[in-house]
């Protein structure tokens, strides 16, 4: 159940990013409460992925602030964001090609390593090296436990990933690679999950499966920020929908409100694409 009140998990105020003369993200405000699923939609080039980059630390905003649970996190590095429970997937899918499925997902759990990664300043890295080489029982136990967890996560995907657990990611189908990405994100045990077009390039069956997974995650209480083009999916899953165009937020509200908002329709049509119409045809098929 989504919490009411001012205790937002994620809070953006006036977030702005410019590239030379172009303002990619223009003064975005956003509040995401714990357990919410908010979708961000908009025509291509609206600044959605850039927004994700700003939130996850991959890029630094020129103005505005990012708050997690009330604490300022503006401009922090992606590593720090990950350590604070933010996990994301990427628009074109970024798995570690030469790593196996198991290894890919284990990387997701990196920030949770404790036994082998002491937080001691200065000599921390050297201790880490020593522990990795020596492998005392605590380290091996931690690794074993994580591996079990990974198998549990992969089980969510039925027979898609488990039988391929030791295969290198580059040898997987596109859809499987995107699933690995999600598995990796889950391994981080995030408190906030950012999904960037998780169904891009997937066929209807795969899309439905993915939709089911996202719904499952939401039901388990995960807070999710979702970028999607497939409006049907957006409507079914979201508590709220935000529409961006040319860096600005042009609408926000429940799915149906936003869909029929004149400004939104114009933004899509005006760019020469009728994404919503195309999607409507697709889901009808």
């Amino acid at each position: 159940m989504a919490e009411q009140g001012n205790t937002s998990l994620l809070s953006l105020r006036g977030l702005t990013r410019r590239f030379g003369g172009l303002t990619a993200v223009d003064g975005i405000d956003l509040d995401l409460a714990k357990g919410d699923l908010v979708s961000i939609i908009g025509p291509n080039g609206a600044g959605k992925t850039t927004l994700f980059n700003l939130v996850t630390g991959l890029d630094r905003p020129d103005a505005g602030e990012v708050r997690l649970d009330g604490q300022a996190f503006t401009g922090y590095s992606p590593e720090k964001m990950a350590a604070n429970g933010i996990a994301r997937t990427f628009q074109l899918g970024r798995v570690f090609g030469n790593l196996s499925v198991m290894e890919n997902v284990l990387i997701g759990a990196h920030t949770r390593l404790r036994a082998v990664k002491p937080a001691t300043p200065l000599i921390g890295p050297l201790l880490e090296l020593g522990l990795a080489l020596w492998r005392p029982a605590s380290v091996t136990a931690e690794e074993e436990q994580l591996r079990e967890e990974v198998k549990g996560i992969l089980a969510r995907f039925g027979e898609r990933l488990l039988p391929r657990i030791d295969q290198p990611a580059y040898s997987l189908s596109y859809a499987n690679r995107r699933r690995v990405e999600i598995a990796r994100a889950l391994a981080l045990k995030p408190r906030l999950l950012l999904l960037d077009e998780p169904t891009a390039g997937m066929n209807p069956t795969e899309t439905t499966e993915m939709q089911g997974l996202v719904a499952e995650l939401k039901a388990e209480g995960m807070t999710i920020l979702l970028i999607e083009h497939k409006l049907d999916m957006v409507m079914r899953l979201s508590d709220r929908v935000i529409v961006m165009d040319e860096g600005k937020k042009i609408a926000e509200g429940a799915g149906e409100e936003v869909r029929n908002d004149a400004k939104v329709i114009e933004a899509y049509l005006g760019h020469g694409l009728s994404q919503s119409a195309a999607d409507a045809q697709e889901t009808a098929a």
Partner: protein
Amino acid sequence: MSSWLDYTINGLILGNVYALVAVGLALIFGVSRLINFAQGSIYLVGAYIGWVAVVQLRTPLFVTIVVVALVSALVGLIIERFGLRPLQNSVRIAPLLATIGISFVLDQIVMLTFSPNPRALPSQLPDIRFQIGTGTIGPLDILIACIGITTALLLFVFLRYSKLGWAVRATAQDRDAAMQMGVDVNRVNQTVFGIAAALGGLSGMLVGMYYNQIDTAMSLHATLKGVVAEVVGGAGNVPGAVAGSLLLGLVESYGVAIFGTSYRNMFAFILLILVLVFRPNGLFASAKQAPPEPLTGTFIAPSRPVHIPRWALGIAFVAFALLPLLPVSNYVLQTLINAWIFAMLALSLTLVAGTIGQVSLGHAALLAIGAYTSALLSLDFSVPVSMSIVCGGFMSAALGTLLISPSFRLRGHYVSIATLAIGEIISLVILNWETVTRGPIGVSGIPPLSLFGYELVSTASIYWFSFAVMVVLALLQMRLLGSHIGRSFRAIRDDDVAARAYGLSLNRYKALAFIFGGFAAGVSGGIAAHLYSYINHETFNTQQSILALTIVILGGLGNVAGAIVGSVALVGLPEIFRIAAEYRILIYGIVLLLLVRFRPQGLLGTI
């Protein structure tokens, strides 16, 4: 003081000379995002074609220029068509290595055809001098300047205002989009290569005339300085390359003025590192561009490593361990000793270049740090040799990592350039820091290898010592690879953006890789020092670094067994084929090219 005017003029004249090479490099980088390490070889070819034209065919200057430009352009076209185009869809590391291989092959062909003796290349221009400051310049200076400026201007106009020029720029920005827009990308690449090669060859000829001397060692020198000038000016930026060259000339000139000649090259490389660290787009790059869309796809070839079953490894281990007990000649043992020592370097480099993806071209510097530390500790402080070698390893790990750390923030080819420069700087520091390293005289009388007080005198004992050390390092490395650190290294290599997004600190893990690898390299250098009893700044040089990289590619990036196999192959095979010694480097170049083209993941596969 009028001397400052002289230094300034000298710097500009020198920069003028560098500019010709730099512009060619800038062109190629601009279009294919490739640092053409073979540019110096084309330069060399141009110089020798010029010699043939001037001295043997006795053509007038204008004809010579045309001939050189045409032949060089042809060479460039051949390189592009057969050496680089097949690699278009290959992994990004492939063209980098291919140009290195091509440079070996071209250099050797010239050397074998013409002999390595330097020869004079008369300039055919009247010998009048014009007074400038207290020095003089001649018609050749003016010719070089004119050619440099004209070419830069022509290219500028061509790229900005002609249709083919737009095609070139479009391809540079986004090859796929350009292709979709109907640009014949292949023709564009060819055109650019042809022009850049013509420029390169011409500059070789002009510089040869300028100094009245050409020889086969010109090639690497030209490439290095050209790359520095180009990166400083802004890679891919033709006017920037000219400006960068002039700046480089001035920096070298003033460096000599203030500190003396022996520090000269150090300034060039320090300038490079400073630019790479603080202004990686170059000093004269145009206004801030949008950061490029993070490239998906890996830098390294996707591959399944060849699985060597444990029992096979066991048998091999036992066989090599027992070898000295068989009636084997010391020559074979010595060759294998060399192979084991090299294997330690290869292990180090395969970890750094293969596992974590930092393709370091200056790795021999880590050998040098280890070697000098061990030699000096055992000589000056009577530290027992085994301990001093270990100290050499630690020093290499610590100091090496510290010195290489400026390259951590760089990506792709820039890492290679930065590490190359850092390696050269370390070599120059060793040359000049006489109070510690004895400067050019080197360190002699280094005590022989010894263990627990026993001197290792027989070849067999040295063999067992180096074999054992190598095996221990290999096992440690395999353990590292099997741990979360190995996994983290490989993740960073495959996709550093995604790696960061999941909490992997790039600096931390790159540092760890260099610490571990530095230790192995330092130990290797230390053992070599005690084996050779004499080392100086030339013992561990850039050619070693590049050879080590070839071995690592041969074996498979990141592949421990591959590094060892590659070392035995590239150290052992040339000994078996000593008859073909003249062709050794030529063969290395061809091997590299074939590998890159047909099996970039190496014999045993990338891990």
